[in-house]
């Protein structure tokens, strides 16, 4: 009786694990495989394997459409705001973690409470702000919006990081006559590397995958980012499924590669979402 129970619970466990793996990668593998099939093969059924593997669809995409531009745009509006945000939020989190000053708790509270604001409820004011700054349909405008993305999470992560650095280091720096700026940049910042990477990864991934504001604030093809390209598939490829699936692969693959390279950091970033509540 006990053995049967044990076998059943084992079976259930492995069934759930197998199911999890299947739903997580099977759709993506199907897309990648389909990008190597001809249109006819795709139409004749999803389980048919491609007769021959070639990269024609990919070559076509990069030659005929500006996929290189889209990729570069995506990199620019993801990377630059992330870099600036990490620096800005580190500066803020550092003084909150290390010093006492009037308004300290108020500022921290305000920064963190932004987590409760549903992402899209600020749409109209932000849309108008960017339009009024004459930044509609510019990468700068989009990057500016992305600057604000990780405020609450980063403050939380970075404040904890700076708090874990011993205060004695700052005392010693003060006795040695190091300036405020130097104490921050040469002593604290290098030691806060892990927290900065965690929040940086979080913001980079969010920006890289962002669709909502990219769709709202960008109107010309020259400034388009990769996630937004998906919306144009039907009109772009007029039911050429091979190209559609190849384009989807190009949109999806960089994120997966990035995850493969920085697995631990990405996991930590995702898990740090738990500071909510």
């Amino acid at each position, binding site marked *: 009786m006990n053995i049967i129970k044990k076998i059943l619970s084992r079976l259930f466990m492995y069934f759930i694990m197998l199911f999890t793996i299947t739903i997580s990668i099977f759709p993506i593998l199907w897309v990648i495989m389909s990008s190597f099939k001809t249109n006819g093969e795709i139409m004749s059924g999803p389980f048919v394997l491609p007769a021959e593997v070639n990269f024609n669809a990919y070559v076509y995409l990069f030659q005929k459409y500006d996929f290189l531009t889209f990729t570069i745009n995506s990199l620019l509006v993801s990377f630059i705001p992330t870099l600036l945000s990490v*620096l800005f939020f580190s500066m803020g989190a550092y003084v909150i973690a290390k010093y006492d000053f009037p308004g300290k708790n108020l500022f921290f509270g305000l920064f963190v409470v932004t987590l409760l604001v549903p992402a*899209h409820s600020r749409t109209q*004011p932000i849309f108008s702000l960017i339009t009024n700054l004459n930044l509609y349909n510019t990468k700068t405008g989009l990057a500016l919006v992305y600057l*604000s993305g990780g405020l609450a999470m980063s403050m939380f992560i970075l404040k904890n990081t700076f708090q874990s650095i011993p205060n004695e280091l700052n005392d010693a720096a003060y006795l040695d006559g190091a300036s405020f700026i130097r104490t921050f940049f040469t002593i604290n910042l290098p030691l806060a590397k892990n927290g900065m990477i965690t929040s940086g990864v979080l913001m980079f*991934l969010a920006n890289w995958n962002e669709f909502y504001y990219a769709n709202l604030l960008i109107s010309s093809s020259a400034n388009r980012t*990769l996630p937004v390209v998906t919306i144009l598939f039907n009109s772009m490829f007029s039911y050429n499924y091979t190209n559609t699936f190849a384009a989807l692969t190009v*949109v999806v693959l960089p994120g997966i590669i990035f*995850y493969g390279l920085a697995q631990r950091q990405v996991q930590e970033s995702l898990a740090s979402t738990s500071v909510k*509540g």
Partner: protein
Amino acid sequence: MRGQTASELPGRALGKFKSIKNHRKITLFWIYVFLIPSLAIFLLFYLMPILTVLITSFTEWDGFNTPKFIGLDNYIKLFKSSVFLESLRNLLGWSIIAATVHVGYGVLVAFILFRKPFGWKITQTVFMIPNVISVAAWAMIYKYFFRNDIGILNTFLRIFNPNIQINWFFEAPYAFWAITLTWVFYAVVVTLIVMGDMMAIPQSVHEAAIVDGANSWQMTWRIHLPLCRNAIGTGVIASVTARIAMYESIFLTTNGAGNTMNIPVILVRSVMDSNYGYANTNAVIMLIVGILSLWIVNKAFRMNERIY
């Protein structure tokens, strides 16, 4: 000795005091300089937008002319609109599914992976992939996955019933479930935070339970689940909040057809129609629903009480 110090001390101490005071002033100056970028971002992208949203939700405003105060008219119009009521119904349905099936699945996977069975690491790694790619791309993948002609799901279902012809993203009862399927099992964040909480359970708790003769079923229900309630509550809040803001997976698949409207879809349409006041009324409802769900979950999971 005593006299000497007494005559020297005031001058020295004053000098030191002066330099400390000066230093304190400089430090305070830099503290606020360091806060400026974060504060600017907060003011520009959070405080001002939220105030704008709250105030203009009571006005008629096209973005060019000055907003005209119209009291509760927008709210009345909203609650009379069938599209909005449909959105509320959907949101309630999706939130319940998120809090039960979605979070439940995440917890189940966490409990399984916590026992470190063969292959747990690869499962965890792979489970993360849907969360690192764009929601928009994921929605598109599912759009093709569910296609009646070339999609996998119907081809698979036709093995059992060759006559199946379902246009998942077009027809009323199916579209809601098709959208649900694009996110309901992808609960890796819940899994990660629950596993984090489980690893934090002190070994002594396990030992005590084993000494008391608890079987693994009792361990799960009486020890692990209650001790992980903060993580589970957090997971519920995060997933319900995500339902309130769910836009891409609707916009790119059904665009609201087949009874699948959600508040952000109405909001964006209103912004595009230069109906800013009405758009912001929707935003206020999103804010209220968000705070309400946070409050309910906090109470239900007693998240403010300490566990250990």
